């Protein structure tokens, strides 16, 4: 289906000459999924009458007792601008709120904003160069001060100041923020920006109060007493905090939404391991909610059998994938292996890469290793649904792999390993130490052996593999191996920042201390060009098509072989109603959690 046809259909729905259902049926016929269609329509302001991105909040009163949450990694600090991981962002989110958050379907949900800016309500500029946020009135900080536009502007100044070294600075350094009046701010972009919902949104958008932080907005930022005793606008207010152990909070009686929060007290206990956290929620019921249960599905099912809790699986964009190095990891150029001027002796042949993709048995990996916690996928970019490519299939076929290699002239040697022109199909395959990953490596190794390819398995401790230590040769960023496997996270519902990991100017190399995002070191002019185009493209349909094209380019190059999606897995007590989203942090809408009685 071409873009103009799509546009015409959407226009017909808008004018009323085609029903929503008719639209979805036609789209399904050409391979588009129903959620994708709904989202395409929503982008044009056509949404079903009952559209609800967030489940309804039912309680009519407060006083729900205690809510006990278990994190197997303990929060270590409570300033969202310093949060080193999701655990810290979540703990901060109990107290601090952003202007808006991302709901499970990848749409924005207002929190401290009065409404979500759109072109229709004049929030979004037609030229894509600014967005105007209207703030909710009557919101008070926990100490009674009024929340105003000054606080919002202050957060921008605070986060972009290099002396503060805020981890959120990426969202703020390139924009300009202007106070329009006490309850309106305008975010201005240097060029037309299709993804405008970054500053002041979701995890990195949590707002801290100006009146308590303004004296600590420089190199002394770490001395602020409020770093450990937060005063926010959230549904719960601070009681006590022991870094690396427990966060305690109580209901905020002046919260800006009616009947919320439901619970009187809140406790987030940290530490331990994922399996016993699952046990404490699902089996013994000592806790109400457990975060990020990286536990194999079999165990989860068994624990769920106790009937005290259930497992929540929320789709996000995280993807476990295998990279085939585009450069040669065994040749050193200027003191650097996997140098960009080299080519991998075997993977430069598309036939070898295609064979490698055919040898990955994703269906078995899903069935026997990940279960519900890892659906197999042919795409690198899987979500939100409007960006998912309908064009790719996954196939496991050893015979075809053999055939392709034979045709390409890779003949088996005496030891059964194929070779051609002195290059042997013998690859070092590295990943981090993690049981499912090692099992995946073995499955891949066995299949490859049947096609005359020898895979040498290597596993590196996660704290080394994922480190940015420039002295260490085993980091994933250096990629001094032929192949590697890990999960790339997608923290936002927009793929702009996610898909930049294959553009040529992001290539990881010595010059940028291997901090570049393009670790597979793949280069493609068309990809670069359409990525640039997508950066400027304001039309959402056109933009979605560009990202789908990018996904197809990188995946069909076979330098990237997607393995499974990694949805977010959590456990909750059977009567708890948490509101979760794969596009925001776990506690993104804690104010709406309640217990059914």
């Amino acid at each position, binding site marked *: 289906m071409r873009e103009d046809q799509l546009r015409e259909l959407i226009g017909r729905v808008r004018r009323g000459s085609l029903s929503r259902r008719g639209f979805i049926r036609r789209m399904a016929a050409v391979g588009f999924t129903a959620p994708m269609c709904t989202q395409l329509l929503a982008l044009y302001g056509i949404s079903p009458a009952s559209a609800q991105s967030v489940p309804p909040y039912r309680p009519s009163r407060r006083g729900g007792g205690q809510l006990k949450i278990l994190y197997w990694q303990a929060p270590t600090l409570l300033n969202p601008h310093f949060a080193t991981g999701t655990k810290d962002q979540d703990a901060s989110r109990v107290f601090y709120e952003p202007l808006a958050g991302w709901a499970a379907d990848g749409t924005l949900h207002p929190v401290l904003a009065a409404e979500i800016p759109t072109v229709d309500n004049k929030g979004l500029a037609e030229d894509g160069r600014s967005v105007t946020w209207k703030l909710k009135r009557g919101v008070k900080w926990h100490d009674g001060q009024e929340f105003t536009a000054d606080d919002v502007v202050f957060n921008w100044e605070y986060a972009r100041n*290099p002396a503060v*070294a805020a981890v959120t600075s990426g969202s703020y350094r390139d924009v300009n923020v202007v106070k329009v009046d006490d309850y309106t701010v305008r975010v201005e972009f240097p060029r037309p920006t299709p993804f405008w919902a970054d500053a002041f949104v979701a995890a990195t958008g949590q707002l801290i109060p100006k009146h308590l932080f303004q004296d600590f907005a420089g190199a002394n930022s770490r001395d602020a007493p409020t770093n450990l005793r937060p005063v926010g606008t959230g549904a719960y207010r601070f009681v006590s905090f022991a870094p690396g*152990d427990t966060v305690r909070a109580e209901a905020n009686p002046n919260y800006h939404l009616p009947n919320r929060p439901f619970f009187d007290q809140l406790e987030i206990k940290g530490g*331990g391991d994922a399996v016993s956290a699952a046990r404490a929620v699902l089996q*013994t019921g000592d806790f109400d909610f457990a975060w990020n249960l990286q536990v194999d599905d079999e165990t989860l099912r068994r624990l769920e059998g106790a009937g005290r809790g259930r497992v929540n699986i929320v789709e996000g964009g995280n993807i476990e994938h295998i990279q085939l190095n585009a450069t040669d990891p065994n040749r050193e150029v200027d003191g650097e292996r996997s140098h960009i001027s080299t080519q991998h002796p075997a993977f430069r042949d598309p036939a070898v890469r295609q064979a490698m993709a055919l040898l990955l048995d994703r269906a078995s990996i899903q069935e026997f290793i990940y279960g519900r916690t890892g659906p197999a996928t042919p795409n690198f970019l899987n979500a939100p649904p409007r960006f998912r490519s309908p064009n790719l299939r996954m196939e496991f076929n050893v015979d075809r792999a053999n055939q392709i290699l034979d045709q390409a002239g890779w003949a088996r040697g005496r030891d059964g390993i194929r070779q051609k022109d002195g290059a042997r199909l013998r690859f070092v395959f590295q990943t981090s130490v993690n049981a499912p990953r090692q099992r995946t490596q073995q499955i891949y190794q066995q299949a490859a052996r049947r096609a005359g390819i020898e895979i040498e398995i290597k596993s590196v401790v996660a704290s080394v593999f994922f480190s940015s*230590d420039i002295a260490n040769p085993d980091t994933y960023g250096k990629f001094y191996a032929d192949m590697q496997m890990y999960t790339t996270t997608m923290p936002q519902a927009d793929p702009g920042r996610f898909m930049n990991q294959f553009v040529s100017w992001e290539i990881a190399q010595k010059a940028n*201390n291997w901090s570049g995002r393009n670790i597979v070191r793949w280069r493609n002019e068309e990809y670069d060009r359409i990525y640039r185009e997508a950066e400027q493209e304001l039309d959402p349909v056109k933009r979605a098509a560009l990202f789908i094209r990018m996904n197809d380019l990188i995946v069909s190059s076979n330098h990237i072989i997607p393995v499974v999606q990694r949805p977010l897995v959590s456990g909750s007590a059977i009567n708890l109603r948490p509101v979760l989203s794969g596009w925001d942090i776990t506690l993104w809408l804690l104010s709406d959690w309640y217990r059914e009685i």
Partner: protein
Amino acid sequence: MTQYLIRRLLLAIPSLLGISVILFTVLALAPGDPFEELATNPAVPPEVRLQLRASLGLDDPIHVRYLAWLTAMLRGEWGFSFVSRVDVDQLILQRLPTTLIVIGSSQIVALMIALPVGILAATRPYSTFDKIANTLAFVGFSLPTFFTGLLFILFFSIYLDWLPFVYRTRIEATGLAWFWEHVKQTIMPVMVLGLFQGAAWTRFVRSAVLDVIRLDYVTTARAKGLHERVVITKHVVRNAMIPVVTLVALQMPIVFGGAIVTEQIFRVPGIGSLLISAILANDTPVIMAVTFVFACLVVFFNLVADILYGWLDPRISYR
């Protein structure tokens, strides 16, 4: 005596310096990066990470960092946690009470098991009681704490559903209910550690007492017609305690250091769990502070043990 003390304390300084140099070098050479999570997060620009590294002095050469650490330590500044962005002493003080309660009471439990059982077993060697005590002691210290810990959880928390297996520092109840809740959650980690330690010590006490009980002066005491209880408590045990005191004194730093594995299993927020999470997060200042305090305590308790010898055995003199 005073002279001896001063000499010993002066001798401790070079050894502590040596320890700190080794610790610091090993930690500096160890792979890893405290801002690893930032590195894998595409939303965080790499400059932020580089800026953070620079501001915390991570890019300086090792000797510069060591000297900075040493001068700060001498001024009483323990360092600044990379991960929590608070002073390390604050972190340690926050966790000290829990550690002292849990590990301290487990050591007391261990002593309360080891002393009576060990002495009783030694006074009746190869009796049925001795054999049972011996067997149980072997079982006790052959089973690692992570195994008994899990076993306890499976049995008492999951099968019987009596005890909670997540330790919580703050409990809402007051008075007796508060105390009871605390006992309920401490009893499993305390018993796991106490039984393990107690089993090892029982064997030790038994052999120490056996060594002494055969000596001639004990026979003399008995021949004098002293009551058996007096012979054991006044003559045998006091002399047998010398090696036991060394052992126990050298174990005392562990009370501070916490029990890494057990704390992790029961989620006890003690120093041990602080240390392990600091190691996993490459939070060097915290690791450095905890291990260094640990080293100081080992040196200190060595001294205490030496002094206790003199009290137990007046023949030992200090020169």
